């Protein structure tokens, strides 16, 4: 079995790089020129946020904080579907 104190070398580096990517995606979502760009960046940002949840749960050593990842992962498809349906229906009108 590996000593859990080894995590102190791995977790801050990974969490820092993921936080940097998360901030760049949030700037893209706020700035993006067209609507599909913003929805696409929101998808990738959701995937990053799942890993950030699991890393926070590993930091606090509490399994209750990790359960939020599964509803977040299953709602990725919904916003794409709704926005695509809105765009096609407005064009047809």
């Amino acid at each position, binding site marked *: *079995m*590996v*000593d*859990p104190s*080894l*995590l102190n070398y*791995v977790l801050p*580096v*990974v969490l820092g*790089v*993921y936080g*940097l*990517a998360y901030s*760049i*995606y949030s700037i*893209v979502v706020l700035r993006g020129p*067209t*609507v*599909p*760009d913003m*929805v*696409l*960046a929101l*998808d*990738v940002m959701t*995937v*990053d946020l*799942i*890993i950030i949840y*699991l*890393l926070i*749960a*590993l930091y606090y*050593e*509490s*399994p209750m904080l*990790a*359960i939020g*990842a*599964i509803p977040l*992962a*299953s709602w*990725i*498809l919904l916003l*794409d*579907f709704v*926005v*695509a*349906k809105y*765009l*096609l229906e*407005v*064009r047809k009108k």
Partner: protein
Amino acid sequence: MIDVLLFVLGSSLMVLSAVLSLIGAVGFLRFRNFFLRLHSATVGSIGGGVYGLVGLALLTLSLDVPGYLKYYIFGVAIVSAALVVFASPTGSHILSRAAYRSGEAAPRPLIRDKLKEAGLE
């Protein structure tokens, strides 16, 4: 012995996945068109998400912590990875189809539009 191997494999997968996620984020800033940004979205979601979730599951399995914490995070990471593999390419495909057909994002440096020639617009 197998635990040290799992720990090294998992942590190297996580570092690789973090770097891939950063590359995808920079690609979102540098590309100039929506249909080009789909490539960097694929790098960011599959390379940056699924590899990291599998690496996190392997890394958690090798730690010396109580069992209910270890197996809980392992199961959540595997299920989330399966959901992301299923849902992310489907969403990108639906979105790009709607963006082309509604004229919301036009492919700007366009040489020849074969979809319009075939009458499938």
